């Protein structure tokens, strides 16, 4: 198993979030940034769009595999809906709570991350293994 790429990838993620926090005083929470942009919150849309453009650029340059596992549109729509609703009610996602919040030792983020990780693991267990015991 190649562990160097996951580790280096993590270092880059941390560096990006650190730069945004240090220079701009902003948290690199992608669900929060996205929600603010689509609501058209006045004022700070510029840096958010710049961050999102940067986020998408490496993927656009390298080119990702367009086929997703299962590729079941109904499941993807349900998943997207739950991700959208959950990250708003819970005020964050993998980046905001899981990386930025934990890095600042926020009790809220630590609790949120433990809960969404456990729930996601349980969901995978049920979907992959629950049906054929």
């Amino acid at each position, binding site marked *: 198993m190649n562990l160097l*790429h*996951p580790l*280096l990838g*993590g270092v*880059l993620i941390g560096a*990006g*979030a650190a*730069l*945004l*926090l240090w*220079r*701009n*005083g*902003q948290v*690199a*929470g992608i669900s929060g940034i*996205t*929600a603010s942009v689509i609501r058209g919150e006045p004022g*700070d849309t510029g840096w*958010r769009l*710049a*961050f*999102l453009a*940067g986020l998408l650029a490496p*993927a656009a340059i390298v080119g*990702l*595999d*367009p*086929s997703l*596992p299962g*590729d079941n549109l109904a499941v*993807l*729509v*349900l*998943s*997207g809906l*739950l*991700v*959208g*609703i*959950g990250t*708003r*009610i*819970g*005020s964050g996602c*993998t980046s*905001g709570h899981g*990386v*930025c919040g*934990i*890095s600042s030792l926020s009790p*809220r*983020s630590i*609790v949120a991350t433990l*809960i*969404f990780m456990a*729930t996601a693991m*349980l*969901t995978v*267990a049920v979907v992959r293994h629950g049906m054929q015991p």
Partner: protein
Amino acid sequence: MTLLTALVAGLLFGAGLLLSGMVNPAIVLGFLDVGGDWNPALVFTMAGAIAVLAPVSYLVRRGRITAAGPCAPAATPRRIDRALMIGAVIFGLGWGLSGICPGPGLMLLTTLGPAAFAFVAAMIVGMLGTNIVARVDGPDG
């Protein structure tokens, strides 16, 4: 400068998600599949990210290095309430179904594939709908 910094921060973040395998839902589902053929690689991603960000986060909160932006980093941990926990459960369900969280979801749009658009469109509907129906606290992140 704020825009350029945000762009570079996004580039680093996006390159990291790409290199780590977070944009590949199969790898994410393998990480979440603790009861099956578990792939722990993303543990290293999280550890790497936190190892870099935590010291910077500490210094910024302590005011040792200055945050240049208009909005001070939200260092005030609010209470752990029901909304936080319910939201995390709903997000975990959605993440576990597809292996896609918001950042990788947006990055998958670059494939111009219908699957990515279906996910992101539904995510945006979910976000907007939640804002309309419920009073939502500002994001922690």
